[in-house]
């Protein structure tokens, strides 16, 4: 009896291991943080893009309004592709697009806006990238949909037509 239990249990254990590895093959192993959970927006001080004045985050985001915070930079290539979609979105005027300029050179950033247009209601500067971390971002571009001081949804990577439509749906 004892002689039979051992081989069987060994085979079953390896069977389970096989199954788990097999399942593990299916999904991507690149880690991305959770994008769907609602979170309070962080508290911070930030410089205004044109005037260079310090602004408190509570003065930027008001209750009962919808905001889209977009982290961008002139040296980031996907930001260029994304920019046209942001321009389109800004035409509707349903959502306040706030720009956060990430680790950029001021004159480069200004040229970028001159060349491609300015979709942003307000722009702020994150020179050392620490405020992006307060938001839980880790690259450029990233966008956050905000309502009532809560992050409703987070978009990692450039926005495209499909995501813009999703944003329009969420706004309604």
């Amino acid at each position, binding site marked *: 009896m004892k002689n039979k239990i051992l081989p069987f249990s060994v085979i079953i254990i390896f069977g389970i291991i096989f199954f788990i590895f097999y399942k593990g093959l299916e999904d991507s192993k690149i880690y991305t*943080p959770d994008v769907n959970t609602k979170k309070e927006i962080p508290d911070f001080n930030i410089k205004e893009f044109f005037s260079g004045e310090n602004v408190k985050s509570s003065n930027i985001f008001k209750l009962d309004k919808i905001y889209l915070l977009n982290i961008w930079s002139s040296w980031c290539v996907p930001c260029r592709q994304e920019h046209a979609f942001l321009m389109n979105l800004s035409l509707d005027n349903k959502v306040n697009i706030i720009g956060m300029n990430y*680790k950029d050179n001021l004159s480069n950033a200004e040229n970028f806006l001159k060349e491609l247009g300015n979709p942003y209601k307000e722009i702020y500067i994150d020179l*050392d*990238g*620490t405020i*992006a*971390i*307060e938001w839980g971002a*880790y*690259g450029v571009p990233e966008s956050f949909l905000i309502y009532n001081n809560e992050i409703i949804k987070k978009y990692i990577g450039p926005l495209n037509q499909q995501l813009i439509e999703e944003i329009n749906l969420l706004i309604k």
Partner: protein
Amino acid sequence: MKVLRFFLIIILFFTFSVLKADELDKRNNITKNLRCLVCQGQSIYDSDSEFANSLKILVDRKIDEGLTEAEIYEYFKNKYGEWILYDPKLNKNTYILWFMPLLIFLFGGAIIFKKLKKKHD
């Protein structure tokens, strides 16, 4: 032998005379235990991506604000999830991770003990 030992002591005493700054030490310790989200195989300490550089600055700032190591880990865990910590906390997800090797050790010990004891019977 004596000469060798003496030699060794001399070497040891003269080679390391650099005392470390505590602050930097603490920062390095913390950043070694945080995983970089950009180059996902490296720690923040080892990585030099933009993200890692900013994170290092933020860790410095948090240390200056007087946060403890545990509080800093908790802060980043809230921002990016458990994944960012290289040192998984003991909770219901990680009981097996932490205790399985120890159980295997005890189990192995039991087998050896049994083998040794057999002789006396």
